[in-house]
C-alpha cells in the first residue's frame, strides 16, 4: 500500500491527518498521516528521530500538534481518554526505590482501581509475565528485561483498548525480547489494538499485521508486511567479495532479473528474482574473489530500506 492509500478510514481507531510538531527549528512531525484499524498490531518503523515517539506521545495526549488533526476513538486526545489507552515508554516509568507490587498498586490507583480488583489484576499480570516470585522485590533489583515486563504489566493493568509501546525491547537480551514480543502478539488476540514503535524489523515482520515506515516526520509507506514486500525482488543475496569494482557491480545490475545492487567494502547486497540462476553468473563476473554467498527470501527489512532509504543501516552502500 502506498502513501495515497494511507488515508484516514472511518472505522480507524487512530485517524491522523497532516500532523505537524516542531521543537525549535526541528520538525519532529511534518505532515504525518496514518489510519490504524481496530484489533491490529500496528508497527511504526523508522530510524531514531524519525518522529515515532512524538506520534505515540500525541496519541497518549502528552503532546499537541501544531497543525493537522488527530482523532483517537473518534475523539481528540485528552487526559480522560487515557483510561482507554495503556502506554509503555522507551524509558521505564518506575521508581527504583519502590517495590514491584507497590508500583502496580500506584499505577492502578491512578486509573481508579482499588481493593480486590486491583490486587487480582496485578497478580494475574505478574503471573502471566513470569514475575510472581518477584512481587515484593524493589524495582532496583530487577534485570533490564524484568523492568520492561513490569512496564508492560503497568500499561496493561487497567485493561486498555489501545496499547502504545515505544521501543518495547530496548536494552534487553534475545530471550527476553522473544518473550516480550510473544506478549505483544498475545494482546491482539485479546481484542486490543497495539501500536509498536520499533527498530526491530525482523520481529515486527513476524508480529505486526500492518506496518508504517516513518521517515523525517512523515509516513512514507504503510500496509501489511506482505503488501510492502510486494514489488521487491523475490530473493536477497548477501555476498562477501574481495574488492568489487564499480564496473563489476554495474555489470551485475544490468543482468536480467536483478534489482538493487549495493555495496559497503567487501559486503555486497543484491536483490534478484531467481537466486539459483543468478549465483553462477556472479562467479563468472568475479572469478576467485567471492568468499561467501548467502541467499534469503526478501524481508520487511529490505522493504524498509527501499522506502526509508540507504545509509541508515551499517553495511549499506550507494545503490548502483
Amino acid at each position, binding site marked *: 500500500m502506498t502513501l495515497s492509500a494511507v488515508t484516514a478510514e472511518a472505522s480507524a481507531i487512530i485517524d491522523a491527518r497532516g500532523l505537524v510538531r516542531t521543537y525549535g527549528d526541528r520538525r519532529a512531525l511534518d505532515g504525518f498521516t496514518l489510519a490504524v484499524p481496530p484489533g491490529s498490531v500496528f508497527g511504526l518503523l523508522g530510524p531514531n528521530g524519525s518522529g515515532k515517539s512524538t506520534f505515540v506521545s500525541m496519541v497518549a495526549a502528552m503532546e499537541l500538534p501544531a497543525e493537522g488533526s488527530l482523532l483517537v476513538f473518534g475523539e481528540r486526545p485528552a487526559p480522560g481518554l487515557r483510561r482507554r489507552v495503556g502506554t509503555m515508554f522507551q524509558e521505564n*516509568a*518506575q521508581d527504583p*526505590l519502590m517495590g514491584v507490587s507497590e508500583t502496580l498498586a500506584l499505577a492502578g490507583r*491512578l486509573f481508579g482501581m*482499588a481493593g480486590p480488583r486491583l490486587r487480582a489484576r496485578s497478580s494475574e499480570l505478574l503471573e502471566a509475565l513470569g514475575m510472581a516470585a518477584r512481587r515484593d522485590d524493589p524495582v532496583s533489583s530487577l534485570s533490564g528485561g524484568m523492568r520492561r515486563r513490569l512496564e508492560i504489566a503497568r500499561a496493561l493493568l487497567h485493561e486498555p483498548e489501545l496499547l502504545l509501546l515505544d521501543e518495547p525491547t530496548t536494552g534487553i537480551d534475545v530471550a527476553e525480547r522473544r518473550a516480550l514480543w510473544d506478549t505483544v502478539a498475545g494482546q491482539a488476540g485479546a481484542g486490543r489494538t497495539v501500536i509498536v514503535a520499533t527498530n526491530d524489523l525482523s520481529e515486527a515482520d513476524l508480529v505486526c499485521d500492518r506496518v508504517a515506515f516513518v521517515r523525517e516526520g512523515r509516513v512514507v509507506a504503510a500496509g501489511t508486511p506482505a503488501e510492502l514486500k510486494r514489488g521487491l525482488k523475490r530473493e536477497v543475496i548477501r555476498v562477501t567479495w574481495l574488492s568489487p569494482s564499480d564496473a563489476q557491480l554495474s555489470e551485475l545490475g544490468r543482468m536480467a532479473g536483478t534489482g538493487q545492487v549495493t555495496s559497503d567494502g567487501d559486503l555486497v547486497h543484491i536483490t534478484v528474482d531467481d537466486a539459483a540462476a543468478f549465483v553462477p553468473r556472479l562467479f563468472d563476473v568475479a572469478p576467485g574473489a567471492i568468499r561467501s554467498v548467502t541467499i534469503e527470501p526478501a524481508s520487511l527489512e529490505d522493504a524498509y530500506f527501499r522506502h526509508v532509504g540507504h545509509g541508515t543501516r551499517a553495511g549499506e552502500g550507494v545503490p548502483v
Partner: protein
Amino acid sequence: MTGLGAVSALFVRDLRGIIRSRSQLYSSIFTPLLFLVFLGNGVSEGLEPSTLPAGNFTAYLVAGAVVMTSVFSSTFSSASYYRDRDSGILRMFLVSPHQPRVILLGKSLAGVFIGSVQAIVVLLVAAPFVDFEWQHGVLGGLGLAIAAVVLLNLMLAGVAQALASRIQTMQGFHLVMNLALFPLLFLSGAFFPVDNLPMWLEVLARVNPLSYAVDALELSAYARGGAGFVGLGVDFAVLGGLSVAVYAAGFARLPKLTWSGQ
C-alpha cells in the same frame, strides 16, 4: 472518576518516599534544633535577655526554628518532582487520566503533611526546655500553633511545587528557593525582632509572608507583652489568604509538567 483517588495515591506515595529518605527527615528536624541549642544559648549569654519579648533568645528562636523547619521541608519535598522526573516515574503520573494540577496537588499535600509534622515536632521538643507563657493555655496555644504551621506549609508547598514544575533543573530550583527564602527568613523575625528595625527593613518585614507565621507562632506560645507584630487575626488572615491564592493560581493556570524537557 474524580481526582481524589489519584491525589490520595500520590500523597501516600510521596509520604512513603520521604519516610524512606531518613537523612532528609532527620536533618529537617535536627538542623533547627541545633540552631536553638547553639545559637540560642550562645546569643543569650551575650545579650541582655530582658530586651527580648520571650525573655531569652532560645525561647525567642523557637518560632523562627519552626518556620525554618517548614521552609526546609517544603523545599526538600518539592525537590521530589525532580527525583520523579529523573527516575522516570513522573511518566506514569503523566499518562494517567488526570490533569497535571491533580498530580501537583497530591504531591503538594504530602509536602504539607510532612512539613507540618516536622515543624510541630520541633515545637514539642523545644517547648519543655524554654519558658513559654502559653497565654491561650497549652492546648489553645498548641492548637493555634498547629493551625499557623499548616497554613504556612500549605503556602510554602504550593509555591515550591509551582516553581519546581516550571524550573528545568534541581540545581536551578534550589538556587531560586535559597535566593528567595533566606532573605525572607532573615526578615521574618525568625532570628531577631522586626518591630524596632529601620523603616525600610520594617516595610520589607511587613510585606514578607513569613513574618506573619513567626508572629502567629510567637503569639501562640508567649505574650510578647502585647499584640505582637500585627496580631493573631491579621496573621491568620494573611496566611490563609495567601494559601488560598497560591492554590487558586495553580489551579487556574495549568502547570507545565514534562518528562522530556522539550
